[in-house]
Structure formats: structure tokens, C-alpha cells
């Protein structure tokens, strides 16, 4: 592999990192509160609001059921406003975040549902406010589950980011398609796949280790 190609490879790797990292982080910042909202507004939640809960659920399902490649182009007007352009790595981060947030929200909701209702009852008996129940009981108790959810999301984002090439987002996936597939360079394709496998392995095992460390059940 030529030095130019290697440099390109490195740049692509950094683009993937930027896309997955930023979309994961912003997705978590939006998705965790969304997941909490889904959980607390549920009929069995601490702030039942079935109408809001159902609306949120429908929106989240709608985003999640839209194929990412379609989402990528469907949100271009919004991307232009947020990223200033509809092409490039920054532009790819917008649809990636929009895909990640509802994904995280659902996983967080599931993690919160695993928290024993008795703990919430105990906190209420202690005179906790709803905000305290969320911050002192639900989130800390669900933290291992939330970390696991975040790990799964990062891994999924690696896959999604491969499609970012469609809007010039770059990244390893894009490199693999353009050089490995379209220019018949099987060694580039192989390297892309191997690096992605290693990346996903590292993310997953780091996530698992953190979950084990946080979990005291």
C-alpha cells in the first residue's frame, strides 16, 4: 500500500472516529433524557402522562424504522442549517445523531424499566422529589444498563457511518467502497474490515468492562 493510501487510510479512520464519537455523545445527551421521559411518563411511571408517552414513542419508532440511507438524505435541509453544508464529515454527523438518539432512548428506557419499582416506592416514602428519584435512584441504578446501551449504540454507529460516504462524509466505510470496491483494491477492503472489527471489539470489551465495574447487583 502506497504512503498516500496509508495517509488516506489514517484520515478516514479519524473521520470515522469523529462521526461515531460525536454522534454517540450528542445522541446520548439527547437520547438519555428522552429515555427518561419515556419511562417517567409511562402509565406506571412516576409522572404518568400517557398522551405524551405515546407521542414520544411514535416519533422514536418512526425515526428508528426509517432506513439510515433514506434518513441521511431526508434530513439534508436540517443538516444544512446545523452543519452549514449538506456534504462532508460534519454533515454526516447530523443524521447519525438523529439515528442514534432514539436508539439510545429506547435502550435507556429498557434499562430504567429494570430498576425495581420498590426502590422508587422507598424513595417516595423518604420524601424524594420526582427529580431526585430520577437523579438519585433511577439513573444510578440503571447506569450499568445505560453504559451497555451506549456501547451497543457506538457499535451500530460504526455500521451506519459506512453509509456516510453517500453524502461525502468520508470514513473507513467510504474508503472501502471507493478504493476497495470501485478501484479493485482488495487489500484496502480487507484492511478496512480488519480495522473496523478491531475497533468494534475494543469498544465492546471496554464497555463490558465498565458495566462489570459499575454493576454491584
Amino acid at each position, binding site marked *: 500500500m502506497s504512503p498516500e493510501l496509508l495517509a488516506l487510510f489514517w484520515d478516514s479512520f479519524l473521520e470515522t472516529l469523529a462521526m461515531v464519537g460525536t454522534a454517540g455523545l450528542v445522541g446520548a445527551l439527547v437520547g438519555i433524557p428522552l429515555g427518561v421521559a419515556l419511562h417517567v411518563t409511562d402509565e406506571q411511571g412516576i409522572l404518568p402522562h400517557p398522551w405524551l408517552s405515546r407521542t414520544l414513542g411514535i416519533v422514536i419508532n418512526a425515526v428508528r424504522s426509517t432506513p439510515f440511507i433514506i434518513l441521511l438524505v431526508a434530513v439534508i435541509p436540517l443538516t444544512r442549517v446545523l452543519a452549514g453544508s449538506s456534504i462532508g464529515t460534519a454533515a454526516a454527523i447530523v443524521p447519525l445523531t438523529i439515528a442514534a438518539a432514539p436508539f439510545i432512548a429506547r435502550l435507556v428506557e429498557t434499562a430504567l424499566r429494570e430498576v*425495581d419499582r*420498590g*426502590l422508587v*416506592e*422507598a*424513595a*417516595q*416514602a*423518604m*420524601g*424524594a*422529589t420526582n427529580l*431526585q428519584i430520577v437523579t*438519585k*435512584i433511577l439513573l*444510578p*441504578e440503571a*447506569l450499568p444498563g445505560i453504559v451497555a446501551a451506549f456501547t451497543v449504540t457506538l457499535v451500530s454507529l460504526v455500521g451506519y457511518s459506512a453509509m456516510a460516504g453517500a453524502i461525502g462524509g468520508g470514513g473507513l466505510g467510504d474508503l472501502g467502497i471507493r478504493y476497495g470496491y470501485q478501484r479493485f483494491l482488495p487489500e484496502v477492503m480487507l484492511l478496512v474490515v480488519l480495522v473496523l472489527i478491531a475497533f468494534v471489539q475494543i469498544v465492546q470489551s471496554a464497555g463490558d468492562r465498565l458495566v462489570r465495574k*459499575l*454493576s*454491584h*447487583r
Partner: protein
Amino acid sequence: MGSPTAGLAARTDARHTMIELTHVSQHYVDNQGALTHAVRDVSLQIASGEIFGIIGRSGAGKSTLVRSLNLLHRPSSGTVHVAGRELTALSPDALREARHEIGMIFQHFNLLSSRTVYGNVALPLELAGQSRTQIREAVEPLLELVGLAAQRDRYPSQLSGGQKQRVGIARALASRPKVLLSDEATSALDPETTRAILDLLRKINRELGLTIVLITHQMQVVKQICDRVAVMDAGRVIELGSVLDVFRTPQHDVTRALIGDVIAHELPSGILERLRKQELGAARLLRLAFTGDEVDRPLLSEAVRRFDLDFSILHGQVDEVQGQPFGSLTILTRASPATIAEASAFLAEHGVSTEDLTAQLLPAPSGSSSGASAPHLTLLRGDAVPLATEALNRVA
């Protein structure tokens, strides 16, 4: 309500009321859309410093009732007063404030798995916005009190059931409550641990003057630590009185059945069947209930000598309730009504109550309807002969 023993009545009257429920009802619509009455028109008062038991079978409504005391379940109607405040009239903020005065412990402990023993006990103080120093000063003595100082940095998953409940108790006490609610706190524990936890609750009751309301389905728990008890069935309080009175003169079949778990109160049905088949003529079946000091006194032999009483002992037991000896003896006698009346009067004078159970000797209504009053089927070997009086007379 039975007549409380003089001492207890005086003690209760001298204290002010800590908890008052007035016409509390709780109903809700279940998943199938049916209206369910969990609690029906319950009114009761619990004195400051009392250990008050609420017992009933599962589904009797006791769990809902205890949750109405801190409004975890808001009653559909009726009022709840705790420590001089009407909880049912408070704003949400004032109610949260009032809940600091009501600690609660749970059957499944409900500890945070993400926090250590120390962190769990500190939680209510953190929620109340206390400083780290204040929290440390409050938590450390509590860990000492419940005997968990050495486990302070362990996580709940590393503790035994009894230790978890101790953490639960320390946590409930952290906000210095006036009332402690116990929701089947010993039901998930083995008998030995149960005893230790109940001893701890009693110690807290005595040392901190805490009013304790505990719900349970185990009469053993009531017998060990409660002052008074309310028996619930189908959402209603069907019996309420001092534990001693309820044990001595249970009014309802439900109560008798619950008591039967710890004290064989009823005449075994086998004995009854056998007696029914015999030609008993004018014989009377009597149950004598002893409490307190009379248990030790030779009252019965005195009665035998004095009234020339002849009887056979069918069934009897002596146990301890509320730290007081408590016994009952079921006898069959052919003495004349006049002699029985005289003897009962003599015994009553010395605090032994006599209950005439002769009606039980009438043939049971068809089928196996001896039911709740005689749950055990045992066979009586040998005749019910007045061996006991014979022996007494010989000695005399």
C-alpha cells in the same frame, strides 16, 4: 375491642395519639376494569410509642392500609393524621416534608444496589439536602445501632437477608422519624433472623420512643413484639385490641385461624368428634384462660379442693404473649351448674376467665363444616376420664 388489661390501658391513655385513620377507604379499578375495594372504612388510632400490628391473610388489604399511612397510596376517602398533621390535606411539597417523619422498611429491603451500606443509609439525608458532615454524623451512629459498622463499605449484594434489613432499618431511621412503618419486613427472613430483627425493632421502639406500625401475616411476629393488633379481612378491620386480649378471646374465625398458627387455641376436632359420640349428659365443656401471674399460682387445685370439682383435662397450653405468660386449659366437668358458677366466680376473682364451650359438643352441622374452629384432625387415645382431678385430690 376486648377489655385491655389495666396496665396497658393506663399506658395507652397517658400517651398522645400518633396516628389516626378516620373512615379510610381505598378502591381502585383493576386491569379488567372491575372495581376493587382494598380497604373499607377503616378507623383506628395508634398511640405514640406503641408497636401496633396489622395482621391478615394476603389480599386482606393490610399492604394498602399501611401505605395509606404515608400516602404512598392516597385513600379514596377518609382522613389520615400522623404526628398531629392531616396528611390527606397537605400539598405535595408539605407531604414530602411530612414523610421525613415516617420511616418505612420493606419485605424485599429495597436497597440501592449501586450504593454501599453507608450510601444507602445516607440517601434520605442527601435527599433532604444535608451536608456531608451532617450526613456522616448521623449515619455512623446508626450503623453502630444496627450492628453494621464493619460492613459500611459493602454493597447490598454482599450482605445476608438479615443484614440487608438492618440497612433498611438504619436508612428508615436516618431522617429521625417519629413513626416506622414495616411492610412484612421479616417475611423474607428465616425464623432466627426474624427474631433478631424483631428484637432490634423493639430496641428501637424502647430507646428512641418510636411508634412502629407493622403489617404481617405471621402471628408469631405479633405475638413477639406488638402491643396491640388489628386483624384485617377483606379490607376491613374485623378485630382490634391488645395482643393479650386478642389471643385470649379471639372473636372471629379468621383471628382464631391466625392464632392457631402459633398457639393451639381450639380443641382438636378429633377430640371433639369423640366427645360428641359419648353420652355426656349434663357435662359442661369449659375453657379457662390464664394470663400473667395466675399461671404460676395453684388456683386450679385450690378450686378443686374448695368446690369439690371433678374434671378431665382435654387440651391445654402455656405460652408467652407480650412477655406475659398466657395459658388456656379446656376441661370437661360433670359438676352441678351451681358448683360451676361458684368455681368460675372464684377463678374470675383471680383473673382466670371461663368460657363455656358446651355448645361445641352438639353434633356438627352435616359435612365437614367443623371448619375454621377445628382445623386439625387428631385422634384421642383413651377416654376423657377425670384423671387430673383424681391426681389432684390424691395429692391433696
